[in-house]
């Protein structure tokens, strides 16, 4: 790969440029993956027997509501008030019907009070079929058991 720099060729040595370009490509691939719009403070309870969620196959109609430990409700890392959440749920329902996948990602320490609030908002908008996100197989950092074996 390393060209001898001794030749009197007019063409430039491409190797460092290619290296830099590779670095940049890898950098962008990595950062794109990281900018996953999730509340990363949420640690999920295990749920080995639920339906496997494949992140790539989620339909665009899905709505994932994050509920943090302190009860903060957010969508794609944007904190929402109850009214705003109701608005969002209604929008989805108007567009896709009441059967769109509505998922709640709540921290395992979240009080049921906050989860119930979210569920009540959804139910009041006519969306009763809800799902809770859990960790089927812990490999990353989202499981409450992450880091301890």
């Amino acid at each position, binding site marked *: 790969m390393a060209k001898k720099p001794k030749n009197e060729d007019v063409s430039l040595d491409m190797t460092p440029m290619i290296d830099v370009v590779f670095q940049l490509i*890898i950098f962008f691939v990595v950062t794109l993956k990281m900018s996953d719009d999730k509340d990363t403070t949420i640690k999920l309870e295990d749920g080995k027997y639920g339906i496997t969620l494949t992140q790539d196959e989620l339909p665009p109609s899905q709505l994932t509501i994050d509920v943090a430990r302190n009860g903060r409700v957010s969508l794609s890392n944007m904190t929402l008030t109850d009214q705003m959440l109701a608005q969002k749920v209604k929008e989805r329902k108007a567009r896709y019907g009441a059967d769109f996948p509505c998922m709640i990602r709540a921290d395992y320490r979240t009080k049921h009070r906050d989860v119930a609030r979210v569920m009540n908002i959804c139910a009041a908008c006519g969306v009763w079929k809800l799902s809770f996100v859990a960790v089927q197989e812990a490999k990353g950092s989202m499981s409450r058991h992450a880091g301890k074996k």
Partner: protein
Amino acid sequence: MARKPQEDPKAEMTPMIDVVFQLMIFFIVTIKQEDIFSKLNANRPAPNASSSESVENDTQIKIDIGPGGMVFNGRGVSLRELDRNIKKLSATSKKATVLVRCTLDSPHMYLVQALDTCNKYGMYNLSIFSM
């Protein structure tokens, strides 16, 4: 970064360092694996409506969830005991409705555990109430 040709006997380090960096970045990236998630489906009946659906099945299983754990048949149970009970009940009917009733100050983990246990034995008729 491009070095002038030199008659130095020591080897050119730049390409090696480049390759090592590439390898390092490659391993850092691949080592970071993603969790595999699952979803647990449940119904949330409207706050103050008597749901007609749950009346159809006369066999209802009730799991109560409090701040300290789960209560089944009026007795505090561990996850393993709940597992055993649900297993027994699922043998008779998988269509029975399971009502999970949570107190407001219970942590979310018990609800997920209860739903997961029901999923394990194929009971998919789950409703969540809050008290």
